[in-house]
């Protein structure tokens, strides 16, 4: 019996010729990652173990991005803990405010993750790096602590679902619409404990930014990881960003999948997730009149150049609806600079948007755009759970950057086709 792409990467990192679904293994880690919310707890657990040093100073990454620039005293104390830990242990890839970005935009851009890697991150959206053909999954702080100490983690080898993406996406269809469509189809636990492998001729039309968005939300279907085969676009990206050695793994032709889904990208419509679960999807044609109070464009899901370019294209020369707040968060400092160079930052500010420094801030109801009771946000982020962006009686709708930008002009959820 053949192995899936994920199984092959895990087998290689466990020093085994082959593995099968359900097997418990210990695998070597190429990157152990955490942020300002999860790392303080990991530092506490790390110190309990009693080792003096991290397993490899180059393979631990720490990015303070959730409540930074520090939103309050308690957050500042947390950031101080991780800054001191990084200094004391000589962690090479600690990114201070001013260099940091949203972790899952930053790590690939900084060339820290390459094809064939095994990555754990104390952040659920660590699955993003599957876009690069790496095995990458979210864990908690204790796993991060042990990962930093030993450079290994325990895994139950996952079975897989295969998603065959076919044909050229229809106009306005982005990675976000594709993954929201998939989550709507299989549900928020449709891929529980499993890998989601994305293949098919449609991949040639998907940019790396589209793929990051799709892999990023595998967790929203319960997936252990999302993963893409390595093709020319991946290699071009890796060449541009990294000089780390990489390994290309491919699924065996006789690999076994729990299910295979075929998706015709040419037939998809812009898709919106209604409160309070990402699986509550409707096409833009079905949404009806939904008035909104705030639009957020950015996050580890949609804070990359493709996302901001399409939003800017729609907002150029237009004004934000006066009853709205529109908050735009570029993923990294480089993306921020690129937005300045391309005139995108100017377009946003002239349209009446907030153009912020990179931060996770509003996505998780942290800071920089909290919702009041009864308010409604349309957001390119990844979760619309109860209270996710603020008051427990506020609402979050999820969509692509194109739908968000179009809606910023009209003040209600709107198709980019009609502005």
């Amino acid at each position: 019996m053949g192995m899936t792409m994920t199984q092959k990467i895990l087998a290689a990192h466990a020093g085994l010729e082959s593995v099968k679904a359900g097997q418990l293994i210990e695998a070597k880690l190429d990157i152990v990652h955490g942020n300002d919310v999860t790392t303080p707890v990991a530092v506490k657990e790390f110190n309990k173990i009693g080792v003096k040093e991290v397993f490899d100073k180059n393979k631990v990454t720490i990015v303070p991005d959730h409540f930074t620039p520090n939103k309050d005293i308690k957050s500042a104390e947390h950031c101080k803990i991780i800054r001191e830990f990084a200094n004391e242990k000589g962690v090479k890839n600690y990114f201070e405010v001013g260099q940091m970005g949203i972790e899952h935009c930053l790590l690939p851009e900084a060339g820290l993750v390459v094809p064939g890697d095994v990555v754990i991150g104390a952040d659920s959206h660590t699955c993003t790096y599957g876009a690069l053909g790496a095995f990458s999954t979210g864990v908690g702080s204790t796993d991060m602590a042990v990962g930093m100490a030993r450079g290994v983690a325990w895994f139950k080898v996952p079975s897989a679902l295969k998603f065959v993406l076919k044909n050229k996406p229809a106009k306005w269809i982005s990675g976000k619409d594709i993954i929201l469509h998939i989550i709507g189809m299989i549900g928020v636990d449709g891929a529980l404990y499993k890998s989601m492998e994305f293949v098919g001729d449609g991949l040639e039309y998907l940019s790396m930014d589209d793929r990051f968005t799709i892999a990023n939300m595998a967790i929203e279907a319960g997936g252990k990881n999302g993963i893409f085969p390595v093709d020319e676009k991946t290699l071009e990206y890796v060449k541009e960003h990294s000089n780390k050695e990489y390994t290309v793994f491919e699924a065996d032709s006789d690999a076994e999948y729990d299910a295979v889904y075929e998706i015709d990208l040419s037939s998809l419509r812009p898709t919106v997730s209604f409160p309070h679960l990402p699986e509550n999807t409707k096409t833009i044609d079905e949404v009806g009149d939904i008035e909104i109070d705030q639009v957020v464009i950015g996050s580890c899901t949609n804070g990359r150049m493709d996302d901001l370019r399409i939003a800017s294209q729609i907002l150029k020369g237009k004004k934000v609806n006066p009853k709205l707040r529109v908050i735009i968060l570029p993923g990294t400092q480089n993306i921020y600079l690129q937005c300045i160079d391309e005139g995108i930052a100017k377009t946003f500010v002239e349209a009446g948007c907030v153009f912020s420094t990179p931060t996770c801030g509003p996505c998780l109801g942290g800071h920089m755009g909290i919702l009041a009771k009864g308010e409604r946000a349309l957001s390119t982020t990844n979760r619309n759970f109860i209270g996710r962006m603020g008051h427990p009686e506020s609402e979050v709708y999820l969509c692509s950057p194109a739908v968000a930008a179009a809606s910023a002009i009209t003040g209600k959820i709107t198709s980019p086709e009609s502005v």
Partner: protein
Amino acid sequence: MKANGTVFKYGDNIDTDVIIPARYLNSSDPKELAKHCMEDAIHSTVNFVENVKDGDIMVAEKNFGCGSSREHAPIAIKASGISCVIAKTFARIFYRNAINIGLPILECEEAADDIDMGDKVEVDFNTGVITNLTKNKTYQAEPFPQFMQDMMAAGGLIEQTKVKLGLK
């Protein structure tokens, strides 16, 4: 080892934002987190923090603990005094985190369907037998793989790691 307590019952897809909202993640103190545990379970008929007692049991339906990887969620539940969480299924990061920190969890579809808010329940961790003392019924939970039983017996992942590294 046994747990015995009153049940707090929840539905499908209880996410970690509901278990411990991000507005409290500027703290990592278990006692502080416990004060806000289940605060956004706004559809629940019983206020968790005001009513939970040491040893009580949490029961939910499918995909418990979905969403964010925040270990603060199982930490908050454990620090509230909850002795065991029973669900039809757990989201995978929550499952890992609970085992790693030594919060007992059990998967049992029948128990999750049958047990109601306020029932008195006893759990035998050695056999996986769940007894509903209110309804006078028993249910059999899935046993844990040996690997995880060993980790729980060692007192969690950190303690097990100390042994592996010869630091204990």
